[in-house]
C-alpha cells in the first residue's frame, strides 16, 4: 500500500484508559488494520483496529517517554499509544489519516474482504433477506394496497427502492404529482401494514408547502391512504421534528401539512432533534464517560447535559405514539421528518418492532433493518462517514435505533430472540465496511456498485454464528400473549448502555452476569439430556425398554451453546485465548479500588462437574472481543 511508510514500530506502550496500567508491545500497520501485539510472552494479547473504524486520530505533544497517539473508534474503542520516536509516530499518524477514509468505494474493506466462500454461498447470503416475501407476510398486496412500478427505474425518486406499495386508488399521475411536492421526491409509501386492523404506517419526506403552497395530487395521495383504512375516519400525520424546526423549514419552501388543506388528517409534531444535535449529544456523552476518575456529580450532570438519554426517550416516545395509534385506534399513520430518511426510519422501524413480534426475532430484525433503513435510503455512507465526506453529514442515527432496541430488550427480556451482543455486532459492522449491506446511501447506488457480486452479506455471517446471539431467556410464547409491547418511557427507565459505550474498557465490565448463569445451566441441561439419551439408547440395545418422559414443552426450542462474547467474557471465535484473559483478570478496578478477587483459602473442592469445567461462578466478567475477523 502506498500510504504505509512505517509498517512496524517496536517498544510501543498501550495505556489503559481508566487506570494507570501500561503494556508494552509492537505496533503493526497493515493494509486493513492497525495491530498491536503485547510483547509479554505468556499471553501476548492482540488489539486489532480496522482502519474504517477509526473516527479520530490525535497526535498529542511529545512527552519524555515518547509521542502519544490517541485513536477514537466508531465502535467506541479508545486507544492511547505512546510511540518512542516522534518520526514513527508521525508516519503512523499520517498513514492512518489517509487509510481511515478512502476516497472511493472501491478502496473499502468490503471489496477486498475474502472469507473464502464459494460464489454460490455469496449469492445465497444475499438472498437471505427477501423484502418481497416480507411484504407478503405483512399482508400486502391486498384489496387496498398494491405494488407500483412507478419507481422501477428510480425515475420518480432515486433514493427509494424500486418496489413500493401504495394505495390501490392512488393512480400514477397522483403519485408523480405528490412526489413533486415532496422533498427529494420521497412521496408517501407503505412502510408497515398492520393486518389486524388494516391500518398502515406510511413514510415520506416533508411537503414543499412553504407558507401557502398546495398540491392537489398530494392531498389526493393522503386521502387515498386514509380511505384505504375503513377502521378510522381520519389518519395521523406525524412530523417527527420539533415544531420550531418545521416552521423554519417553511422559509426554505418546505414545511409541513396544513390541516385545513388535507381532509381528515390529524397533524402532530413529536419533537425529535436533528442529526446535528444528535451528533453533538453523542460527542458530549463520550467526553463525559471517558473522563478518568469522574465524580458522581460530573457523571450525572454530564449524562444529563449530553441529552443522550433524553433523545433516546424522544425517539421511543414517538414510536410508542405510533404503535398506539395503529394498534389501539386502528388509524393509519403517515410519518415524516425533513427528508424522511433519519428520524422517519427510526420511528417507523421502532413502531413496527413494538407492534410485530416477528421483528423481535433474529431474522426479523435483519428484515426490519433491510426494509426501513437500507432499502428506504438511510444514508449510511454519509452518516457513518464511510468515505471522506462532509463531517456535518455524520450522525449516530442508526446507533440510536440500536440503543432504543436495547432499551426495549432491557424492559422485556423475554420478548426478544436476540441478545445485546447481536445489536453490538450489527453496530460494529455498520461501521466496519467489511460487508456490502451498509455501503452507499441508497439502493440505486448499491446496484451501481454491484455490491452483490463483489462483496458479502453481513446477515449470512451473523446467522452462521447465530447461537452467539440467542437470548437464553427468550420465550416465544410471550409474543402470543403480548403481541404489542408498551414500554415505560419514564426517564428512569432509560439506562446508560454500558456494554456498548464501554465495550472495550475492561474495568467497566460487570463483575458477574445472570445471563452467564442461565447459559451454563442451559448447557448443563443439554448435556444431561444427551447423557440420558445415550443411556436410553444403550439400554435399548440391551433390550430394556423404558420411557421416562421429560416434559418437552419446557424444553428449549433453540440451540445456544455458550455464546462467545465480551459480555460473557470470552473472545469471539477467531482467536481462542481464554488463558490470556485470565491473566488480565488481575486488574485493579478504577473507582472501585479493589484488588483482584482472591479467595482466601483453597478448601473449595471442585465438584465432579459434568459440563465443561466452567464454574458457574466466574469471578470477573471481562474480556475484549476480537471483532476483526
Amino acid at each position: 500500500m502506498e500510504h504505509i511508510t512505517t509498517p512496524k514500530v517496536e517498544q510501543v506502550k498501550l495505556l489503559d484508559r481508566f487506570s494507570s496500567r501500561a503494556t508494552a508491545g509492537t505496533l503493526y500497520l497493515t493494509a486493513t488494520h492497525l495491530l498491536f501485539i503485547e510483547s509479554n510472552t505468556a499471553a501476548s494479547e492482540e488489539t486489532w483496529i480496522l482502519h474504517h473504524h477509526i473516527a479520530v486520530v490525535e497526535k498529542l505533544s511529545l512527552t519524555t517517554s515518547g509521542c502519544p497517539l490517541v485513536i477514537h473508534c466508531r465502535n467506541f474503542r479508545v486507544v492511547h499509544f505512546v510511540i518512542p520516536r516522534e518520526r514513527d509516530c508521525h508516519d503512523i499518524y499520517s498513514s492512518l489519516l489517509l487509510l481511515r477514509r478512502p476516497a472511493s468505494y472501491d478502496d473499502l474493506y468490503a471489496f477486498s474482504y475474502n472469507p473464502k466462500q464459494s460464489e454460490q454461498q455469496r449469492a445465497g447470503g444475499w438472498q437471505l433477506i427477501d423484502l418481497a416475501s416480507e411484504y407478503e407476510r405483512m399482508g400486502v398486496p391486498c384489496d387496498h394496497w398494491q405494488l407500483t412500478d412507478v419507481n422501477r427505474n428510480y425515475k420518480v425518486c432515486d433514493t427509494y427502492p424500486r418496489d413500493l406499495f401504495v394505495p390501490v386508488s392512488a393512480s400514477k399521475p397522483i403519485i408523480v404529482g405528490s412526489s413533486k411536492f415532496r422533498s427529494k421526491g420521497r412521496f408517501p409509501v407503505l412502510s408497515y401494514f398492520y393486518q389486524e386492523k388494516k391500518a398502515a404506517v406510511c413514510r415520506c419526506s416533508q411537503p414543499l408547502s412553504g407558507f401557502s403552497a398546495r398540491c392537489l395530487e398530494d392531498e389526493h395521495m393522503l386521502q387515498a391512504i386514509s380511505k384505504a383504512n375503513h377502521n378510522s375516519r381520519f389518519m395521523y400525520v406525524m412530523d417527527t421534528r420539533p415544531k420550531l424546526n418545521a416552521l423554519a423549514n417553511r422559509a426554505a419552501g418546505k414545511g409541513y401539512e396544513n390541516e385545513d388543506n388535507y381532509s381528515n388528517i390529524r397533524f402532530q409534531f413529536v419533537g425529535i432533534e436533528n442529526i446535528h444535535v444528535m451528533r453533538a449529544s453523542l460527542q458530549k456523552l463520550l467526553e463525559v464517560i471517558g473522563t478518568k476518575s469522574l465524580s458522581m456529580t460530573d457523571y450525572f450532570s454530564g449524562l444529563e447535559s449530553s441529552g443522550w438519554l433524553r433523545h433516546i426517550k424522544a425517539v421511543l416516545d414517538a414510536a410508542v405514539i405510533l404503535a398506539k395509534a395503529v394498534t389501539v385506534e386502528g388509524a393509519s399513520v403517515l410519518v415524516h421528518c425533513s427528508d424522511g430518511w433519519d428520524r422517519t426510519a427510526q420511528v417507523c422501524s421502532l413502531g413496527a418492532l413494538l407492534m410485530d413480534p416477528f421483528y423481535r426475532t433474529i431474522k426479523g430484525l435483519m428484515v426490519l433493518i433491510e426494509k426501513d433503513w437500507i432499502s428506504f435510503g438511510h444514508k449510511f455512507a454519509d452518516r457513518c462517514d464511510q468515505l471522506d465526506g462532509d463531517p456535518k453529514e455524520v450522525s449516530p442515527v442508526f446507533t440510536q435505533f440500536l440503543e432504543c432496541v436495547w432499551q426495549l430488550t432491557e424492559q422485556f427480556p423475554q420478548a426478544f430472540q436476540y441478545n445485546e451482543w447481536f445489536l453490538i455486532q450489527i453496530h460494529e459492522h455498520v461501521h466496519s465496511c467489511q460487508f456490502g449491506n451498509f455501503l452507499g446511501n441508497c439502493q440505486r447506488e448499491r446496484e451501481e456498485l454491484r455490491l452483490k457480486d463483489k462483496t458479502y452479506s453481513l446477515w449470512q455471517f451473523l446467522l452462521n454464528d447465530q447461537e452467539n446471539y440467542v437470548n437464553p431467556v427468550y420465550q416465544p410464547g410471550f409474543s402470543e400473549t403480548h403481541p404489542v409491547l408498551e414500554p415505560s418511557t419514564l426517564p428512569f427507565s432509560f439506562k446508560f448502555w454500558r456494554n456498548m459505550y464501554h465495550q472495550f474498557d475492561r474495568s467497566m465490565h460487570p463483575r458477574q452476569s445472570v445471563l452467564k448463569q442461565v447459559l451454563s445451566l442451559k448447557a448443563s441441561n443439554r448435556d444431561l439430556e444427551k447423557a440420558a439419551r445415550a443411556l436410553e439408547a444403550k439400554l435399548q440395545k440391551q433390550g430394556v425398554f423404558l420411557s421416562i418422559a421429560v416434559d418437552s414443552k419446557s424444553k428449549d426450542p433453540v440451540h445456544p451453546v455458550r455464546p462467545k462474547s465480551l459480555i460473557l467474557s470470552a473472545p469471539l471465535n477467531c482467536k481462542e485465548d481464554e488463558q490470556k484473559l485470565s491473566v488480565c483478570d488481575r486488574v485493579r478496578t478504577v473507582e472501585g479500588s479493589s484488588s483482584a478477587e482472591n479467595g482466601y483459602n483453597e478448601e473449595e473442592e471442585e465438584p465432579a462437574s459434568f459440563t465443561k469445567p466452567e464454574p458457574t461462578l466466574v469471578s470477573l466478567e471481562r474480556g475484549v472481543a476480537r471483532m476483526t475477523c
Partner: protein
Amino acid sequence: MNCGTIQSRAHCSCYTAPSQFHLKTQTMASASTPTYNSNNLENNSSKNASRESLRMEPLADVPQLPGEERITDKDIIYICPFNGAVKGKVSITNYRLFFKSFEVDPAMTLDVPLGVISRIEKMGGASSRGENSYGLDITCKDMRNLRFALKQEGHSRRDIFELLFRYAFPLSHSLQLFVFLSQEKFSENGWNVYNAILEYQRQGLPNNKWRITFVNKQYELCDTYPTILMVPFKATDEDLRKVSAFRSRNRIPVVSWIHPVNQAVIMRCSQPLVGMSGKRNKDDERYLDTIREANGQTAKLTIYDARPNVNAVANKATGGGYEGEDAYQNAELVFLDIHNIHVMRESLKKLKDIVYPQVEETHWLSSLESTHWLEHIKLVLAGAIQVADKLSAGNSVVVHCSDGWDRTAQLTSLSMLMLDSYYRTMTGFQVLVQKEWISFGHKFSSRIGHGDKNHADADRSPIFVQFIDCVWQMTKQFPTAFEFNELFLMTILDNLYSCRFGTFLYNCESVRDNMEVKEKTVSLWSMINSENRKYINPFYTKESSRVLYPVASMRHLELWVSYYIRWNPRIRQQQQNPVEQRYMEMLALRDQYLKKLEELQISDAPRIANNSNSPASPMQLVHHVQTPL
C-alpha cells in the same frame, strides 16, 4: 394475592401504558396492592372472598392478624395522587389502616401498618372551600404520603384523627406497641437464629490470641454493648475498664470478625475522648497495640474513621476526636468521608421529593444527583471495600465513627458481607443483622421512632435503609452470590417500621432485656424462616471462600427503583422477573433430567458391574448447580 389483584395484573402486567385508558386500570392494580406490601403475605385466605359480596358488606374482608383488634370504620375519600379521589371505607385496627374503595372495579385497597406512619396532620378547616379540601394528610416512613378527605359536617374528622393519632403513636399515649399484643405464631423461632458464642465459634474464636469476656455481663462496662464481647487475650478486664473511660459511651474496641486464614481482625468502637486539649490515654494506646500484635503480620494498625476529616476535628470541641499520630505511632488513620445521620436524612427526604408522588421527569438525572443519595451509597460501599481489602491483605483494622453505632455498623457489616460468604446466606444475613446492628446497639428506636409522635426528632435517620440499599447494590453486581432475593430485603425494610415483630425494637440489648422482648414478642426471622422459599434467590450458587469486591462507581450503582418508587403505578411490577422465571423453569427441567437419568441408571445397574463406561451418576451431576428449594 387476592383475586382482584390477579385479575387486574393480568391485563396490565406487561405494560406501563402511557395512554390514559391503560393507565387507569393499571393504576388501580398497582396502587391497590403493591407487590411487596408487607402485609399481604398472610391474608391469602381472608382475601379470597368474592368481590361481589364485598360490594354488599364493605370491608368484610379486612385482613386481621392474631391479636389485632378493630378500632373503627368510616366512610372516607382517598385522594390517590395517581388517579384522583376514590370513595371508600377505612378501617382502623390497633395494627393497621385498611382502605377499600367501593366504586372502582377491581376494588382498590390500601393496607398500611400504623407503624409506618410518621406524621398525621389535619388539612383544611370546617370552612374550607373546594372539593376534598377537608381531611387528613398522613406522612409515612416508607416514601409515601396518604391523603384522605372527609365530609365537613359534624366534626367527622375529629374522632378518626384522634384514634389514628393514638394508635399510630402508642408510646406517646402510654399504650403498648402492637407487637406486645400480637398473638402470631410461627413454626420457627427466629430468636434462636443468633447466639453470640456460637457465631464466634463459627469464626474460630476464642483462640490463643482472643478471648471472650463477661465484663459487660450486667451492662456495667458499656450499656449499649451486648453482654458477650471478644477482646485480645492479653488485655485484662481491668485494662478494658480503663480503656472504656477513654472511648465515647464506653464503646471499647472489640472484635467483629476474624479472617479465617490470616487472622486479621475487624474491630469496632467509638471515637476516643481526645477533646480540645488533645488528651492521651496510655491504656488505650497499649490496647490498640495489643490488637495490632495479635495476628503478628500487621505492621501498622489501620484505623478507619468513617467521618469526614472536618467532622472528626469538630468533634474535639465536644470532647471527642480521633487517634493522633503522635499518640498512636503504630497506627495509621484513614478518614472515609461518610456524612452523619442528619445529612443522610435530608438526602433521603430529597429523594422522596423527586419520586413521590410524581417522578421528576424533565431533569431526572440532575435531580437524582442533587439528592446525593447514590453518592452517599458510593462512599459507604467504597469505605467497606477499603476495610475488606485491608483485611484480605492481612492487616487488622479498627473502625469507628463518633459513637460507633451508625456508620461503624454499616462499614463492619458490609465488609463482613464482602469477606465472608456465610453472611450472604439467608441465616447468615440474619446473624449479621442481629450481631452488628441489633446487639451492638444501632439505635433503632431513635432512628426509626417506633410508636413515637415526634416526627421531627433529629435522631431519626435512614441509616439502616442505606445499609440495605448497599446490600441490594451488591446483589445487583453479584447476582449469584446471595441466597436471598430482593423481596427478602424489602420485607426487612417493611418490618423495620411495622411494629409487628420485636426484632428492630429499642436501642440496645440492655433495654431489650428489660422489656423482655425475646419472651414477649415474635421475631421477624420467625416469619421469614417459616416460609423462606419465597425469599430464595434462584441464581444463588453456594460457595465458601470468595471475597466480593463490588464496584463503587456510578457506572455500576443504580437507584433501587423497585423499592423507592414502588408506590408509583407506572413502575412495572412484574410478579416475577422473567429471567428468574426462565431460570426456575430450567432448574425444573434439570431436575427432570436428573430423575430420568437416575431411573435409567437403576435399570442399568445390574449391567454396570461388568460395564465400566457408564456415564457419571446423577448425584455427581447435581453438584455443580444448586438445587432450588
